[in-house]
């Protein structure tokens, strides 16, 4: 036993904490205080002792006495409406895993009805989500990545197993014929949304104007605004099926693959540079996969199971980014991004209903154990230098973790009731189990993200928080789309073509007086009475500036520009920079810099309409893909007559909210 610590408390610590308590501490001071406390057990003790004094004085002086009791009278009020909306910072996953763990993702068996949650309005508690015995044994594993089994998808049984065909990039027609034809599914979706509208007694927004629709389709599928000549071409096209033709063109274009790859790369490894991660290598890999329309099940399985160095196996970048820290981030990010479920401990204690044996903490480590035996190493690269690689370590056996009582426990990898004891091939096995699990989370999660990508809000929101505690706004739509996605061999292009064919995608993004209340803000159930506008991502912004001014899309220049937007919070590693960067003031500040100057420069290579506009139409059509409204014409008429008025208007439109939005 050591001697008790001396009574003296370091002055610098006392001063810093005092400053905090008196609201005088700045961010730098706070950071210093943190470092001090985290780095030295004696400082931690001093911190707690000083806090105890301050707290006890505040408590005893009566600050608390009056407020703690009213809480009791409030106790029977409904829970805070947002109780199930908050999201756990990923960086806390490590400590929280020790407290609780995955609550529903990893639970074997069926997904319980959310009925009682809805009825009481309670937040997600483990208690409300009682595990049930597994209704069926997990589907017979097929060679990874597995196909849905016939048992669950009888319609698949009618046709021979049809893996998606990377070679020709199109899903097998026979497979599609065996499921609901696309037109029928689209009609079902339209009808389901219309039912919701009539129940809420609200009319949807009218159809989008051609220019608005075109801009949306280009930003969604090509990742940037249409060029002025594309606008001209589309608006001059009078064929009744010009939209379908445009969609075909966009969906089969290279830009669709690279835009989707950019979005997924950001979701998988974020935007900020990471040790060992070759971000653009991963993006190139995904671009290739999307361009060849490889089934998403293959792509996802590859991300989970890849081994080798990131140059030869670019999919390995995903785990190179996340297997640090005992693979806790890998466990959490895999759940969130690929399964659409959060490592979220809703409440952290035993489940009495379950005899106290069902520790959700254990579920977390059971999933985590699949990543055990995977190390990130540095290998010499052929072109010199070193390159990160995923390598199997010699370490097999169980994973050890400490439970809340401080008892050491051990677990083998386990998912959906199946335990894997072998040391090697654990990640391959995980990919197989995830894809054969009857909850179909990888498919459902992808469908929900694609829906949110096009319509501005997910069927489930947040998009990565699927689960019985957070039901979909239109569950039948989500299920039907997931059915088709799985049955077509996770055909990404088919999914997007289906979504884009809906009535919703043709609706205007602008609200009417009648449906203005229908906005996709957190906590509200979206009715999709319009195609909600979406803010441009930084990548879309940069590429649109190039497209409008007739310059080529330059991914390298874009990456450099985007780097200026990446915000990283110290200590929040592996999570914070996964958030989309939509800091508009900052974006504008940067836009007014070089990128904006380039867009406005009268470049010889630029389109003449943009470089030397002759009238209002030239400027509006190029910048916003639409002609000016009558009101705008009236208001701006004087400007046209002033010298360089149109030039100034270009700047104004590029800085407008309309330019910064996918309509």
């Amino acid at each position: 036993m050591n001697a008790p610590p001396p009574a003296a408390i370091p002055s610098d610590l006392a001063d810093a904490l005092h400053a905090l308590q008196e609201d005088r501490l700045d961010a730098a001071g706070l950071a210093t205080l943190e470092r001090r406390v985290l780095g030295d057990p004696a400082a931690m003790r001093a911190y707690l002792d000083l806090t105890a004094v301050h707290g006890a004085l505040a408590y005893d002086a009566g600050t608390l006495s009056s407020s703690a009791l009213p809480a009791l009278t409030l106790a029977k009020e409904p829970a805070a409406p947002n109780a199930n909306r908050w999201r756990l910072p990923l960086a806390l996953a490590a400590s929280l895993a020790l407290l609780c763990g995955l609550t529903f993702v990893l639970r074997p068996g069926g997904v319980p009805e959310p009925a009682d949650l809805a009825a009481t309005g309670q937040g997600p508690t483990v208690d409300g989500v009682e595990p049930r015995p597994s209704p069926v044994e997990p589907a017979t594993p097929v060679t990874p990545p597995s196909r849905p089994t016939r048992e669950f998808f009888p319609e698949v049984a009618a046709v021979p197993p049809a893996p998606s065909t990377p070679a020709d990039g199109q899903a097998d027609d026979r497979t599609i014929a065996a499921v609901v034809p696309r037109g029928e599914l689209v009609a079902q979706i339209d009808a389901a949304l219309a039912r919701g509208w009539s129940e809420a007694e609200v009319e949807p927004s009218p159809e989008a104007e051609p220019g608005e629709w075109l801009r949306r389709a280009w930003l969604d599928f090509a990742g940037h605004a249409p060029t002025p000549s594309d606008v001209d071409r589309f608006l001059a096209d009078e064929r009744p099926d010009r939209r379908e033709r445009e969609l075909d063109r966009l969906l089969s274009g290279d830009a669709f693959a690279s835009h989707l790859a950019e979005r997924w790369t950001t979701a998988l490894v974020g935007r900020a540079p990471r040790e060992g991660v070759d971000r653009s290598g991963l993006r190139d890999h995904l671009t290739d996969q999307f361009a060849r329309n490889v089934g998403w099940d293959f792509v996802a399985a590859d991300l989970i199971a890849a081994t080798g160095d990131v140059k030869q196996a670019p999919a390995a970048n995903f785990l190179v980014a996340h297997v640090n820290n005992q693979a806790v981030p890998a466990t959490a990010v895999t759940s969130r991004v690929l399964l659409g479920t959060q490592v979220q401990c809703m409440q952290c204690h035993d489940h009495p209903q379950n005899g106290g044996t069902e520790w959700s903490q254990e579920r977390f480590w059971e999933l985590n154990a699949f990543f055990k035996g995977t190390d990130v190493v540095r290998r010499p690269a052929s072109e010199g230098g070193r390159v990160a690689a995923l390598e199997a370590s010699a370490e097999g056996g169980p994973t050890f973790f400490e439970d809340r009582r401080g008892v050491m426990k051990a677990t083998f990898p386990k998912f959906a009731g199946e335990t894997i004891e072998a040391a090697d091939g654990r990640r391959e096995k995980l990919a197989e189990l995830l894809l054969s699990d009857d909850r179909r989370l990888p498919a459902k999660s992808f469908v929900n993200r694609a829906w949110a990508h096009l319509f501005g809000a997910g069927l489930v929101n947040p998009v990565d928080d699927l689960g019985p505690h957070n039901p979909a706004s239109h569950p039948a739509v989500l299920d039907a789309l997931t059915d088709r996605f799985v049955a077509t061999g996770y055909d990404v292009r088919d999914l997007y073509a289906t979504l884009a064919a809906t009535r919703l995608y043709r609706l205007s993004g602008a609200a009417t007086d009648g449906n203005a209340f229908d906005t996709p803000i957190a906590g509200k159930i979206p009715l999709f009475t319009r195609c909600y506008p979406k803010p441009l991502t930084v990548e879309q912004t940069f590429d649109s500036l190039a497209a409008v001014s007739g310059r080529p899309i330059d991914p390298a220049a874009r990456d450099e520009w985007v780097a200026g937007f990446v915000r990283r919070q110290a200590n929040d590693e592996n999570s914070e920079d996964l958030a989309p960067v939509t800091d508009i003031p900052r974006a504008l500040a940067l836009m007014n810099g070089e990128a904006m100057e380039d867009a406005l420069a009268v470049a010889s290579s630029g389109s003449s309409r943009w470089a030397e506009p002759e009238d209002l139409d030239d400027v509006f059509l190029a910048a916003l893909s639409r002609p000016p409204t009558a009101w705008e014409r009236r208001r701006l008429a004087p400007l046209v007559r002033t010298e360089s008025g149109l030039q100034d208007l270009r700047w104004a439109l590029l800085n407008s909210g309309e330019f910064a939005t996918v309509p």
Partner: protein
Amino acid sequence: MPEPDEQFLRDFTASQRRLFLTILSQVGRPADAEEILQNANLAIWRKADTFEPGTNFNAWSATVATYEVLKWREKRGRDRLRFSDEFVAAVAREAEADPGLWEERRRVLERCVEKLPRKDRDLLTRRYTPGSDGSEVQGKEVAEMLGRPVNAVYQSLGRIKKTLAECVRRELTQLGAPTTGIAT
């Protein structure tokens, strides 16, 4: 919802100070800790029927409180100066290891406050007695009340708190208890 039994109520009432201090150690400001304590109380009350009688109420409620801290941080904490996640997790772990010296500390602290010079005690009372609207009175308002320079009052308060913390440590050591719950 079944009514919580008497034992639950007793445990609940007794836990308040401990919970407040646990939360405070994770957020720094009494006003914030107070708000979170209210949320935690709501949650504890709501989940009362899931608590298994006979198990450790303190550990259970501390976990609920930790959850409420996280929730609050997520909801309210983004826009202001706050501790890092790593720090909060470390402090939560540390506070959880404390087996319940809070009551002991309180009695000791009372004695230590009594030992203070009258002037210092007066300053403390003004600083910690809630304002007429129930809000926290900060050092600079105390200075205004006393007509003393803000910095002088600020310095005095810092010194008094440090003195008290050291006094508590000494007293606890004499009582034979470690200064915190960490086994030494």
